[in-house]
């Protein structure tokens, strides 16, 4: 029992407990603003998980884009759309039961598949295990930038540019939706 109580395992257990509890509260709470705050804490826990895997840049992106951007967007939308203090909706118990049943069935199916399947490549070879454990080179911005802006093997210029077009389309789409509504009002 004692050999499991390493700092790494304790941190992982704490982070996963925070993530799962906050996610569960986020989908079950009646107040929408509280759901957004719980989502925020779950996302911080996920950023901590990335940090533990020594992916610092991804943790920073998770914090700044998700926790800093998307959750704030949610909060703004709730302020604009929702009447604060009012419970969001009355969902019938049968609907909740159906949803819980579907989710429980999915969890059971996935976990039973995960633990009963005979993996051929899933369990790492001892060399790969050693490689993963002793790998100390941190992923620095140099590697990420070269991988994002290169055209060779394992380099992703095309998805990067497609992302740029997607963001442009997203901006124009949001503007069109907002503008059309204004003209309708006049």
């Amino acid at each position, binding site marked *: 029992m004692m050999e499991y109580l390493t700092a790494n395992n304790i941190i*992982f257990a704490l982070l*996963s407990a925070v*993530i799962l509890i906050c*996610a*569960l509260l*986020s*989908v*079950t709470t009646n107040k*929408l603003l509280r*759901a*957004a705050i719980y*989502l925020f804490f*779950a*996302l911080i826990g*996920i950023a901590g*998980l*990335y940090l533990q*895997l*020594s*992916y610092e840049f*991804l943790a920073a*992106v*998770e914090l700044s*884009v*998700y926790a800093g951007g998307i959750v704030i*967007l*949610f909060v*703004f*939308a*709730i302020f604009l*759309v*929702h009447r604060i203090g009012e419970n*969001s*909706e009355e*969902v019938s118990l049968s609907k909740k039961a*159906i*949803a*819980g049943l579907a*989710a429980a069935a*999915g*969890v059971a199916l*996935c*976990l039973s598949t*995960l633990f009963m399947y005979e993996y051929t490549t899933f369990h*790492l070879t001892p060399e790969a295990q050693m490689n*993963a*454990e002793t790998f100390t*080179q941190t992923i620095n911005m140099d590697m*990420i930038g070269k*991988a994002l802006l290169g055209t060779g093997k*394992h380099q*992703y210029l095309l*998805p990067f540019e497609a*992302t740029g077009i*997607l*963001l442009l389309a997203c901006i124009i*789409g*949001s503007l069109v*939706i907002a503008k059309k*509504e204004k003209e309708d009002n006049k």
Partner: protein
Amino acid sequence: MIPVEFYVVLSTLLFFIGVYGFIARKNLIGMLMAIELVLNAVNINFVAFNRYLFPGQLEGYLYSLFVIVVAAAETAVAIAIIINVYRKMGNETVDSIKELKN
């Protein structure tokens, strides 16, 4: 090092918490939050497998980076649509959307 199965179990649970939220909620913003949980569960899998199987390469890493970008774009458009729905219909539950075009 933590066995990779733990990450898979964590992301499975997170994914189906998101699925539960998506089915059980009537509020459009609440459903959008549940989708974010699902996307994050998938990201955890990508990142964990990348770290454990090919720590010197960046495939899963960049994939989850792109997933985050697409999620941000999707959320922005979805919130614009939700605000539009609220202006037209007066509230933001799924039941209020009975027509696409008046």
